[in-house]
């Protein structure tokens, strides 16, 4: 076999492997769309479930997931971005910052069900929040923080050192340099990180299982201390816990969750490409 044939064979194999990655995602989306699209209707999206959830809509689960995602955002964005600014711009290389980084790496490796148990122990029981939007949002926020911090820190570090130097040489304080030069240049990376983190939070089941998610609620929440239904948990419930559930409704629920999560993904890609076009260094 000559070397050109070897190269063709190699590229062929690599192309096949790359294709293997694409196949499952296409199949997943196709399966869910084909089986679930029939369930999607205005009524399905905007009404309460009834008849043991075998009929009606999934409105409260959609509202719950949106509320939880917003709650997570409110808690995790300021802490995450603030922490990233500190680590990237101010922290010296000491045992403390090394410990913080080690903690971040380990946090992102913790299984999500462990966050759920932690949230149950700390927020629900010890801090007496009960199973509530507050407890669930805080649990999801803790799970999201490592993602936001590490992606934001990376975005900040990608801004050339030179810009900070120039800002300092013009008589800017370090904070003025960060505020006026570094942050504007890092915005797209930071927003991408935030969306990726929230995306994961919105789709998780285990952390909300013990902290907020309700099996079935006849009404919408009225305060942050109320439990809510949430899409991922609702999907689990209708798929395994309700006998005689029409499959179309199961797939319909999955489709709504998928669309919510994927649309956040699309928005984050759009933001990224918008800022990338403006950035020119």
């Amino acid at each position: 076999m000559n070397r050109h044939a070897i190269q063709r064979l190699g590229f062929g194999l690599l192309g096949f492997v790359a294709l293997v990655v694409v196949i499952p995602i296409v199949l997943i989306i196709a399966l869910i769309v084909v089986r679930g699209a029939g369930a999607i209707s205005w009524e399905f999206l905007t009404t309460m479930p009834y008849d043991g959830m075998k009929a009606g809509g999934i409105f409260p689960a959609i509202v719950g997931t949106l509320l939880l995602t917003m709650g997570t955002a409110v808690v995790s964005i300021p802490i995450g971005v603030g922490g990233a600014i500190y680590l990237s711009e101010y922290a010296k290389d000491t045992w403390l910052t090394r410990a913080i980084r080690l903690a971040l790496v380990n946090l992102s490796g913790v299984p999500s069900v462990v966050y759920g148990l932690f949230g149950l122990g700390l927020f629900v029981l010890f801090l007496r929040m009960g199973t509530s939007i507050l407890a669930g949002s805080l649990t999801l926020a803790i799970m999201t923080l490592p993602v936001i911090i590490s992606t934001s820190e990376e975005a900040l570090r990608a801004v050339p050192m030179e810009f900070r130097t120039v800002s300092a040489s013009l008589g800017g304080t370090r904070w003025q340099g960060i505020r006026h030069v570094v942050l504007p240049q890092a915005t797209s990376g930071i927003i991408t990180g935030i969306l990726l983190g929230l995306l994961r939070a919105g789709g998780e089941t285990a952390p909300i299982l013990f902290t907020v998610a309700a099996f079935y609620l006849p009404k919408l929440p009225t305060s942050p201390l109320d439990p809510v239904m949430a899409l991922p948990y609702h999907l689990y419930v209708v798929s395994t816990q309700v006998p005689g559930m029409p499959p179309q409704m199961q797939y319909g629920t999955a489709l709504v969750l998928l669309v919510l999560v994927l649309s956040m993904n699309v928005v984050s890609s759009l933001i990224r490409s918008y800022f990338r076009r403006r950035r020119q260094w």
Partner: protein
Amino acid sequence: MSAKFAVRDLDVFYGRKQALRKVSLEIPEHQITALIGPSGCGKSSFLRCLNRMNDTIPNSRITGQAFLDERDIYGTDMDVVELRRRVGMVFQRPNPFPQSIYDNVAFGPRVLGARQFGRLDEVVETSLRGASLWDEVKDVLHHNALSLSLGQQQRLCIARVIAVRPEVILMDEPASALDPIATLKIEDLMHALVEDYTIIIVTHNMQQAARVSEQTAFFMVDDDQVGVLVEYGPTREIFTHPRDARTEGYVTGRFG
């Protein structure tokens, strides 16, 4: 003629390595002073002591004294941030922010509080005129600064410095990335600027030092590879009647 800077017995260290030893000199106001010498002789390190940009390098340390208008640059009562506004800096590689031309010039006044600098549009125009760039960019003020040629970018960086009304402009090989025409424009600009500012330029290019400067300081490494000031005086004397054999060897092109 008074001294803008007075430096006495200045040593600079980076970690355990000494970069400069016992440098003493006085730099006159409203003149162009050139710092020349082979690579690694500490001339840029010296320049960065004058606005304390060396502070930003970890493990850097200085001993000795440096005064700006008879005030100790390294004294405890010196506001470093204000010092850097008064002693502006132009870098080797043109480094405008990836923003519009207007925003680049307006950056300093905006960050430092535009009110003390007057109306922003006027500051931008005066600064760009001061940097001989206004006529070339007045119709494209809101275009990205990186669309300019390198020479224009460097003059934009000078305009950005002028906008915060410094007293001194430090230039660290400002023309070494530029072609000869752009270099000439920078040199013409320096002659115009010296009316209002004290200029200190580090350059590898001896002809440039001879063309633009009134005073020249020649740096070189000694036997321990530590930078020292070999000779300092009026440029004409340094180039025609150097007192030190090493200076003569360098300016006549025998090494370096």
